[in-house]
């Protein structure tokens, strides 16, 4: 995934407006891009081409449904590991091989690997975390959310 800022001229005003609009969500209708296209003064085809390009240049990482594991009877859990530096890349491979690992970040701390497990059944969290402990021989600290203070944070493109 791209970590460097795009050159400022990589996105025009319509691209920026599109990113901001699409963060709010697409309507669930037969022609979901029609309203956005009208608002931007573009055709639906032009909007679709722009979304494809935004994905290709890395301005967006994903376009699709965002799922909440808890709402379908499952769970998310933030996990952390203290991975010895020489083993780091090998442990990344072992951890990321699990489809339940939704994202994973290296962080500057003694606990240097932080990942989120997403399972459609609550018991899945413990099972996957235990399996990762067995595969790596390292403890997996578990930080399930007790409460979420939800806010409509948006990146202004």
């Amino acid at each position: 995934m791209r970590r460097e800022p795009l050159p400022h001229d990589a996105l025009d005003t319509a691209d920026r407006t599109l990113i901001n609009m699409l963060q709010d969500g697409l309507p669930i209708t037969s022609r979901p891009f029609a309203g956005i296209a009208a608002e931007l003064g573009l055709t639906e085809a032009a909007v679709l081409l722009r979304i494809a390009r935004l994905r290709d240049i890395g301005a967006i990482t994903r376009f699709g449904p965002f799922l909440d594991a808890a709402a379908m009877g499952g769970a998310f859990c933030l996990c952390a590991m203290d991975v010895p530096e020489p083993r780091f890349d090998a442990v990344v491979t072992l951890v990321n091989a699990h489809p339940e690992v939704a994202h994973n970040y290296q962080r500057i701390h003694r606990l240097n690997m932080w990942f989120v497990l997403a399972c459609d059944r609550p018991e899945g969290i413990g099972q996957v975390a235990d399996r990762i402990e067995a595969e790596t021989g390292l403890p997996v600290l578990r930080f399930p959310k007790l409460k979420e203070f939800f806010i409509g944070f948006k990146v202004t493109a």
Partner: protein
Amino acid sequence: MTLDATDRRLLSATQAGLPLSPRPFAEIAREIGVSEDEVLRRFARLQETGVVRRIGVAPNHYALGMTANGMSVWDVDDDMADVLGAQIGALAFVSHCYLRPRALPDWPYNLFAMLHGSERSDVEAHRLEVLSLLGAACRSHDILYSSRILKKTGMRLKTGA
């Protein structure tokens, strides 16, 4: 809500992304062998019940210039954590704020807040703002900067489960 087999097929078919077509739900319908109306009805219900939070984009913060982000962590009085968490969550530079269990003795922090900015110095300034908001309720704190994204796929459903 409990997902049935068709819901699962629907989510499996779209979890890597929605088809980039003028009628994406019709394409999904064709792919899994149901009508477009049924796909629309099911997605509406999935969104109502919160299984689907929204259908939209995940912006790449880095590409859009928000290159600095830190996971700030705070050891806050349990009695006050709800009130303070809500206040921190409402700050414009905080994207996520969660109350989580401590892992003593290694990890004394119970409040996690993701701070964003275009430079590290912005994030440090935000951190001081949170610190002053928490005041005496905060016993200790730290911030963990990310050095590498190792994976970012979002939640995946197992197919056929």
